[in-house]
């Protein structure tokens, strides 16, 4: 082994320490930079009409994003309705029933793989199985695509959270004569509910900014989202994409930044709220 002098080793240590401090600073600075530039460019666009009027083709006065905002809420809400019950049940199966270890391992593996699945592929898949057979783009198809992305995320966090519940609780409930179903739903899930909620909120905040799957499913329309199940439905991410890339006009870019600011605020709010929930639970335990 080569001999290294003490001075060299100390210097190397200092240098490495400085580099790792710099790395953290850089990452945090970039985060703040992105937030700041969205705020600086988005704030001037925001006004009462911007938030209450629907989007219109370029040139018409009183352009807004209200329809896209509503559409995003609808699509994400629909996705949550589809994904949450399924994912909770699936997570319960992984955590509570150990009769078929091979099957459980295979399902866990599939869920992990689905978690890393590019969202654009999920979009393609939903296009093939819903948009093509029904013959039209729709907000519902968008909901299904987002639900497919949420499903593995909630399932895995549910499993992790349920596994943290001490076994003594289960045994006590069963000893009192409760059925397995009742024990699981009323005792185990109830004592892990903060964790379950955190997982759900994180999944919602993750999918509500997804754009790629919506390009293949929900598309966009300059109208109120009244035809959620049967026609292209407006939504924020696709609106931002359209305004930023397909429009040469400065005012459209400005509206895009405004929409980006609204979307980012909502998503970060949900994300941070879920973290606080998780921390409060950690202190209580």
């Amino acid at each position, binding site marked *: 082994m080569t001999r290294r002098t003490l001075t060299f080793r100390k210097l190397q240590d200092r240098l490495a320490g400085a580099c790792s401090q710099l790395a953290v600073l850089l990452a945090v600075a*970039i985060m703040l930079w992105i937030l700041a530039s969205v705020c600086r460019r988005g704030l001037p666009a925001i006004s009462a009409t911007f938030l209450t009027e629907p989007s219109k083709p370029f040139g018409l006065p009183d352009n807004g994003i209200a329809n896209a905002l509503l559409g995003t809420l609808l699509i994400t809400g629909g996705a949550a309705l589809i994904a949450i019950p399924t*994912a909770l049940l699936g997570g319960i199966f992984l955590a509570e029933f150990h009769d078929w270890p091979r099957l459980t391992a295979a399902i866990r593996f599939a869920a992990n793989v689905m978690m890393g699945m590019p969202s654009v592929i999920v979009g393609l898949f939903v296009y093939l199985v819903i948009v093509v057979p029904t013959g039209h783009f729709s907000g519902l198809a968008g909901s299904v695509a987002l639900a497919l992305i949420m499903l593995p995320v909630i399932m895995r966090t549910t499993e992790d959270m349920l596994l943290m519940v001490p076994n003594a609780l289960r045994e006590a409930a069963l000893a009192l004569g409760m059925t397995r179903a009742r024990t699981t739903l009323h005792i185990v899930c109830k004592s892990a509910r903060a964790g379950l909620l955190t997982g759900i909120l994180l999944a919602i905040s993750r999918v509500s900014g997804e754009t790629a799957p919506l390009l293949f499913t929900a598309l966009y329309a300059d109208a109120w989202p009244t035809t959620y199940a049967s026609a292209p439905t407006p939504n924020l991410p696709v609106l931002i994409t359209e305004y930023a890339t397909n429009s040469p006009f400065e005012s459209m870019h400005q509206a895009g930044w405004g929409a980006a600011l609204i*979307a980012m605020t909502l998503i970060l709010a949900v994300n941070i709220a879920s973290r606080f929930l998780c921390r409060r639970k950690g202190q209580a335990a």
Partner: protein
Amino acid sequence: MPRTDLLFRSLCGLAATLIALLLCCLCGQLLLSSLGLWRHTGLAFLASCDWNPVTDQYGALPPIVGTLLTTAIAMAIALPLAFAAALFLTDAPPALATPLGHAIDLLAAIPSVIYGMWGLFVLAPLMQRHVQPLLRGLPGCNEEGNGFGLLTAGVILAIMILPYICAIMRDVFAMTPPMLREAAYGLGCTRWEASWDIILRYGIRGLLGGAFIGLGRALGETMAVMFVIGNVMSLPKSLFSGSATIASTLANNFAEASGLQRSALFALGLLLLILCLTIQIIAQYYLNASRNRRGEQ
């Protein structure tokens, strides 16, 4: 067993099996939909550079090369940064490490379309004005850049995958038994030597798992890349060249595609799916291996 229990159990089992079925359906459906292209072009699809909807010729080489290059650039930037940041965050006092860790995690919460917009309107002009003139003349940078292209896409991807890699690395570092670290300090190691020679070696499988998770994210990222890569279907001449990735090609061309072109896009999707599946399987293998090892302690 009471009847409600049986019902509950089968319901749970059904919900869980659904995800495995979905994964199979996904692979099957994409294979089925791309059959038209495989019959028409065969495996030459993978090696051909022509992408011409007018003459119905499709080759996947440019987007494949674009995907691999942007991912390589992103990993080259993000890996050392994530490693250094994770080292600092595990060693720092909690009062400092917790908020900074959360701040880095927030990078993962920002939607990709906002990264794309930021890249398009903030980063690309910056690259054109300051970074590209600086790098000109270096090998692989001998072209007039317009701010878009491989390098810009790689930088954006690096920022996007950094929080994922960093979070897993922090977990791995935090799980290293303190005895190992203390023994290293006891032998007179500096902090850096303890980190590089002991903790890195000990947690290498977990770190690799984290790296592969980041790799999978970078391969499949669509919107942010689509905004800044330029969407040019030809082989790149330099790091400043406009290019395309598999995912950006899908999102960009799908709306106006029909017939054989659509089939070609599905074939691209299948390629991306296979790539990501492989990467995920490797990642899961390493993460499981590192978890088992920690379990043995």
